[in-house]
């Protein structure tokens, strides 16, 4: 008996040894969690309200200077920069109009090649006009007076943004590294972390963010942005509890920002705190008229099966997105396409998704286009877009989930299962019902 069982026992022993070895390797592989230095500093605007006030003062000052010297281009550039900052801070399209007008005035008044091409590049980037931004960065590089180090670094970083939005992750990484070598600024670190996140290198992205908090002291708004990004990484991994914690931390560090409030509401939805999230979203819709909040409300009510409430919010959001997409088609096509896809017309969604992907042919835009193509019964074309996103280096659970859906429709069940498994390995909650409610930080 003992002799007979010898070989099975040896096999069992071998399995135990292998398991121990794997456990030991896992232990040695698991690095300690990166440490964040997130102490709230005493300087810099402490709240969203404070920062808006400071930015408004800056804008008012520039407008005052314009009144005094209307033929000088520099005050117009100041006003344009302040308006662009306010647009990004408040999300109000009127500031984008103002920035556009002021930059146009600079172009009229300043002799070429002077006239802050870096600001024009920044404006074009905000309008999702990559060719315009590239043109302005070329003008900047040809300037007779060399710009300061920070501007050169920011120009390299913006070229990195252009590479990212054209789906060239390697080139974007190279340019971000170049920008960091010129001037190791926090904005570059945040861009690198963003690139790492969308490339699926979540641990690297967290390490980059943690390291950025330790190298320098940052203002509350910067720390809050870092906390938000860290939460998004947790969310892309399906760790919705940790994501929620980071979103709350972002609010503590820099209270009152509507973007943080959106993410906090999403975090609550993902953690089953539906009523509290609805309350917050209704407040955002009421006080800031944010169409994202309205879309999220429409979705929540749809999932709850309340057609009347869902349609009220969807209608309100749709009106805003249509206005904005009419004014700046490329800049708001993604939001409008997403809205049309979920609440409106799928043919309209496809048209908008195509505008978006043409303007910025990167992973996220291709995934949105893929979803619109699937909704328009073109799964084969959707797979092509997903393939291009995959080739660019884009990695997310959602990408593989969309791929699985297209493959399922085409009847390629084995490949669909493989794609589902990959999606699950990135985010084990990708197929959970709560993941439906992640409107912002899917990755």
């Amino acid at each position, binding site marked *: 008996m003992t002799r007979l069982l010898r070989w099975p026992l040896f096999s069992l022993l071998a399995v135990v040894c292998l398991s121990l070895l794997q456990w030991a390797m896992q232990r040695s592989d698991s690095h300690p969690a990166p440490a964040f230095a997130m102490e709230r500093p005493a300087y810099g605007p402490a709240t969203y309200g404070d920062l808006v006030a400071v930015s408004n003062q800056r804008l008012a000052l520039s407008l005052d200077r314009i009144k005094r010297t209307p033929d000088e281009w520099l005050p117009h550039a100041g006003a344009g920069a302040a308006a662009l900052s306010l647009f990004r801070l408040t999300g109000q399209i009127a500031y984008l109009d103002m920035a556009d007008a002021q930059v146009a005035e600079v172009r009229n008044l300043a002799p070429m090649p002077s006239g802050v091409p870096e600001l024009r590049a920044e404006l074009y980037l905000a309008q999702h006009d990559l060719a315009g931004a590239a043109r302005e960065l070329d003008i900047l590089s040809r300037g007779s007076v060399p710009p300061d180090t920070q501007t050169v670094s920011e120009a390299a970083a913006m070229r990195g943004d252009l590479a990212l939005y054209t789906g060239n992750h390697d080139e974007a990484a190279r340019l971000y590294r170049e920008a960091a070598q010129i001037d190791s600024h926090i904005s570059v670190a945040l861009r690198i972390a963003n690139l790492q996140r969308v490339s699926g290198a979540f641990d690297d992205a967290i390490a980059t963010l943690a390291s950025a908090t330790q190298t320098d002291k940052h203002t509350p708004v910067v720390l809050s942005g870092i906390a938000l*990004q860290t939460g998004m990484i947790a969310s892309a991994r399906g760790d919705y509890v940790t994501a929620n914690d980071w979103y709350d931390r972002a609010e503590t560090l820099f209270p009152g920002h509507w973007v943080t409030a959106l993410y906090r509401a999403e975090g609550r939805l993902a953690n089953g705190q539906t009523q509290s999230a609805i309350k917050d979203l209704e407040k955002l819709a009421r006080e800031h008229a944010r169409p*994202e909040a309205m879309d999220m409300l429409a979705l929540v009510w749809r999932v709850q099966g309340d057609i009347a409430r869902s349609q009220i919010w969807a209608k309100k959001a749709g009106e805003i997105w249509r206005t904005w997409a009419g004014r700046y088609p490329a800049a708001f096509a993604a939001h409008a396409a997403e809205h049309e896809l979920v609440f409106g017309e799928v043919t309209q969604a496809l048209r908008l998704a195509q505008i978006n992907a043409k303007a910025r042919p990167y992973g996220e835009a291709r995934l949105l286009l893929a979803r619109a193509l699937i909704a328009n019964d073109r799964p084969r074309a959707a797979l092509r877009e997903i393939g291009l996103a995959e080739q660019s280096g884009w990695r997310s659970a959602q990408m593989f989930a969309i791929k699985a859906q297209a493959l399922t*429709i085409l009847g390629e069940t084995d490949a669909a299962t493989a794609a589902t498994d990959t999606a699950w390995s990135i985010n084990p909650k990708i197929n959970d019902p709560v993941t439906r409610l992640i409107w912002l*930080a899917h990755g």
Partner: protein
Amino acid sequence: MAWLIAVTALTATARAHQAPNSEAYLDFQADHVELEVVIPAAEYAYASGHRVGQDDAAHAQAQRYLADTIAANGGGGLWRTQVERLAFITQDGSQDLIATLSLTPQDPADLRDFTLNWRAVIGAVPDHFVLVMLRRDPATKLGDEPDVIGTLRANRTALAIQRGAAHPWMPFANAVSLGAGHILGGVDHLAFLLALLLPLPLIARGARWREARGGRPTIRSAAILISGFTLGHSATLLAASLGGLTLPGTLVEILIALSVLIAAIHAIRPIFPQREALFATLFGLVHGLGFAGYLSSTDLSVARNIGTLIGFNFGIELVQIAIALAIVPALVTIAATRAYHWLRSGLALLCAVIAAIWVVDRYFGLAETFVTLFEAVVETGMILVFFGVLTAGVIVIARRTIADRPRLV
């Protein structure tokens, strides 16, 4: 400051979820098409404005909604649509409306190509689609692995369902596959077979299993035993399916579990030595009723036709013979060693415990979570047992070959 806000803004673009889709599975029966629909409950509630609930009123509303929004037409006109079963089922945290509809043509001869018309949910939710799959068509398709036929969505609410070319041998092949699949998945039948085969290589003397009796008589006994079992279950399967012989399903299931228990006890201590074939034939009658019950609950088209019934039976036999061919030589080989006593007793005891739990569950009903886990463990365990016995047989043969090899001096 602008760059920071830029970084935040670029990550704040919309990246919404994927909405769950509906699924529709088509099963062709002899005179109608069975359509199983799976619709996410939230989408149903949103699109219909109806409540999701387990009460009769909620079910009646859902039934009306499906009858109003799903239809079929072809051949002689509109087919009769009837909602047969309906429930709201929660699985893995998401709730679905699961229903079975029957789509029946006016004339059974029109059960060929047809158009499926669908408005449920897709009329109200833009990105929602229905994945339509052909699961079973005994005349044109082998097996019941769903094949995607197409999708239905807001801009396409009708889908042409075209049956492939019918092959005369396909129903028989499907029945063989169904029979083979049933015996492979039916752990109680496998346990019965295993428990009966375990003592076959041994001689019973003085109420004890004694020494091995050699390969030839064992194989002959195994052949007679399996023939007896086949005779028994074929008789009742035909009688039940074609002649209408019935016994309460629960009673049949309990008797099957009892047959495993008795066979397992016999494998420990001989109760009916030399009469295993008779026992197998008698309890084969009960197992046949079990097969008939399975057929009536899964595929009536097989049960109503003598040709496909023979095919189903043939599938069962194929698997039984394959298992016996693999396992009996291994048992004969191991029976020559002292270890066989422990192996036989251990496996018989395992079968007895499993059978006892089946008897209790089928009579009294045990907790569902326990039963699910138990069945999963037993299924895996049974596969391991068969492979374990085969491996042990191979090891014994290998050792014997090494021991018999002439040694070089």
